């Protein structure tokens, strides 16, 4: 027998669940003070998620996907990117989107049922949330091709779930990225559950990272509850991508502590005991232990941060709730650059109908 191919998947972790360093930390993490923005980003995301769920439970927001327990994947990814890179999120990446400059009010508007929520004031080239699972992987390849054609040192970052790695379209995009050495990073948020289907029923592959091998580029698995590991891996992948070294897949192994979305009830398919056990691994606690042990974080710091984040989230929620509904005819106004004639007729009909309804209400 002659072996004609072989591969290995590296697993990386810097902090164990107790917050202890298990190997020398990367440069950005050596001074604990430098880790506080990452910690803050995770806490802010958790505050936002809690508020969004509460708004949904009280009928003031539509269906919402919390990122509870996966804040390190989002903060690590967002922090690793440069402003000129482009993020293509799926629907649980609010933590990364905030670091990119998307406003919390915008995301509340989106989940509250208003298209203006995807017209981010901040990252103008970032893609909106992608609900059809994995269909944005090809967009990331297209964006990366645009960077490559213009000779720009930029990269696209596509965040996927573990379930998305089963989709043919994701492999199609990875395959192209491999052949053309596109500047793209695929970040797989492996939170163990695709709604009710567990990771081991999703694929027989040992890791999701190794799916990159078939596409001809490198994959790495990191502890997705270790924000240092996520940021380090995504940063390295981005540096490689921007300098012409081609794509990377980063599999971040974490756990979805919440239901899939606010309309899901995870108790139908997984044990509470399993979830409880996973709380000891959660990423915010881990970094807090690390910072506390290093003398860089106190109880007072924690209380102040929680209060600050709460205020910020409340202000965003109030701004969202105070945003007037769009005019009804706006459903026509962004469909094409110029409204075609037959749609103009339909629009006029709707405007007339809305005018009549308004009149009735006035009466």
């Amino acid at each position, binding site marked *: 027998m002659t072996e004609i191919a072989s591969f290995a998947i590296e697993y990386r972790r810097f902090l164990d669940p107790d917050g202890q360093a298990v190997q020398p930390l990367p440069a950005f993490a050596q001074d604990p003070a430098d880790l506080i923005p990452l910690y803050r980003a995770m806490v802010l995301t958790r505050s936002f998620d809690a508020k969004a769920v509460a708004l949904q439970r009280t009928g003031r927001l539509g269906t919402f996907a919390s990122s509870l327990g996966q804040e390190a994947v989002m903060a690590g990814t967002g922090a690793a990117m440069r402003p000129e890179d482009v993020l293509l999120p799926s629907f649980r990446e609010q933590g990364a989107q905030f670091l990119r400059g998307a406003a919390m009010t915008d995301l509340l508007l989106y989940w509250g049922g208003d298209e203006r929520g995807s017209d981010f004031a901040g990252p103008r080239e970032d893609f909106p949330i992608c609900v059809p699972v994995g*269909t*944005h992987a090809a967009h990331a390849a*297209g964006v990366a091709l645009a960077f490559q054609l213009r000779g720009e040192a930029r990269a696209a970052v596509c965040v996927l779930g573990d379930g998305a790695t089963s989709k043919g379209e994701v492999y199609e995009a990875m*395959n192209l990225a491999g052949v053309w050495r596109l500047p793209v990073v695929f970040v797989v948020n492996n939170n163990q559950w695709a709604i009710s289907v567990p990771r081991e029923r999703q694929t027989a592959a040992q890791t999701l990272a190794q799916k990159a091998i078939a596409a001809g580029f490198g994959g790495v698995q990191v502890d997705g509850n270790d924000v240092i590991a996520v940021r380090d891996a995504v940063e390295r992948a981005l540096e490689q991508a921007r300098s012409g070294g081609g794509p990377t897949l980063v599999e971040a192994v974490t756990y979805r502590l919440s239901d899939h979305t606010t309309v899901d009830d995870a108790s139908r398919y997984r044990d509470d005991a399993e979830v409880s056990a996973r709380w000891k691994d959660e990423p915010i606690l881990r970094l807090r232990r690390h910072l506390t042990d290093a003398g860089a974080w106190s109880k007072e710091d924690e209380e102040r941060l929680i209060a600050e984040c709460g205020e910020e989230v409340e202000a965003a929620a109030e701004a969202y709730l105070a945003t007037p509904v769009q005019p009804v005819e706006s459903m026509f106004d962004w469909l094409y*650059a110029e409204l075609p*004639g037959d*749609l103009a007729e339909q629009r006029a009909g709707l405007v007339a109908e809305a005018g009549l309804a308004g009149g009735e209400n006035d009466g």
Partner: protein
Amino acid sequence: MAEIALVEAVQLALARAMEEDETVLVLGEDVGVNGGVFRATDGLLARFGDKRVFDTPLAEALLAGISVGLGAQGFRPVTEFQFMGFFYPAIDQVANHAGRLRNRTRGRLTCPIVLRAPFGGGIHAPEHHSESFEAMFAHIPGIRVVIPSSPARAYGLLLAAIRDPDPVVFLEPKRVYRAPKEEVADDGTAAPLDCCFTLREGNDITLVTWGAMVQETLAAAETLSGQGVEAEVIDVATLKPLDMATILTSVEHTGRCVIIHEAPLSGGFGGEIAARLADRGLVSLTAPVKRVAGFDTVMPLPRLEEHYMPSARRILAAVREILEYA
């Protein structure tokens, strides 16, 4: 000016668009070195280089998906699907993304892409190579569906589609790819989108059609003229958004309408035109609206395809039936 075929007009328009706008790219399977299976992209790689013309891996959903990504970044990809029968995996991208990107970002990101595919039967092609499902695309909001029926309109409409700031599904009737030929001025003049073309004027009946059926319909109109019946022939050209005004104006003076398409009858785009005639043109009609279409069967393999596709004879039979109404 030399006479050229429809597929050569496509090639001419692509070259012209690439010449005038460096953001125009050509992507697809076998479009580079091979010049496309129908040679629609022949010579473009040699002329514009491998930073403008791309042979992609064999993956149709990917083709549409990277086009969306490129479009959002300001490129204008013109992407070829080898045959319409292989377009299905990409419909997800068209419906969920291309047609929605402008709307869902309130104009922050747009999708100025053209997705080209040869469609229809009549060239004795293998299974899955002869379908006509333009109506499926015409149901998708936010896109245009454009179908040329002659070399000149292929040239002008493709230029217009590429310059258009929104996604266009551009379907080329491959049965008329090679003939008939006509003179086409390569002067960069686009033909208007969102507008029907009246190819023949007449006062007795309106024949509405598109794609390869235009030839059959014009042949039927010629026969009718010899029998003293003058048919007005309308090439719809842009199915979505539909220029219903031209059709209604014609039916106002003819009082009769037959719609001809190669796609299956039920749920075909002819039904939409007939419904709009019922809504807006009923008082002008002196006879029922008749559709001549493919059957609601699977497109047969080549031995029977001639019996599937509407022929001039079948169109004439429908016209005679309609003319019997006083």
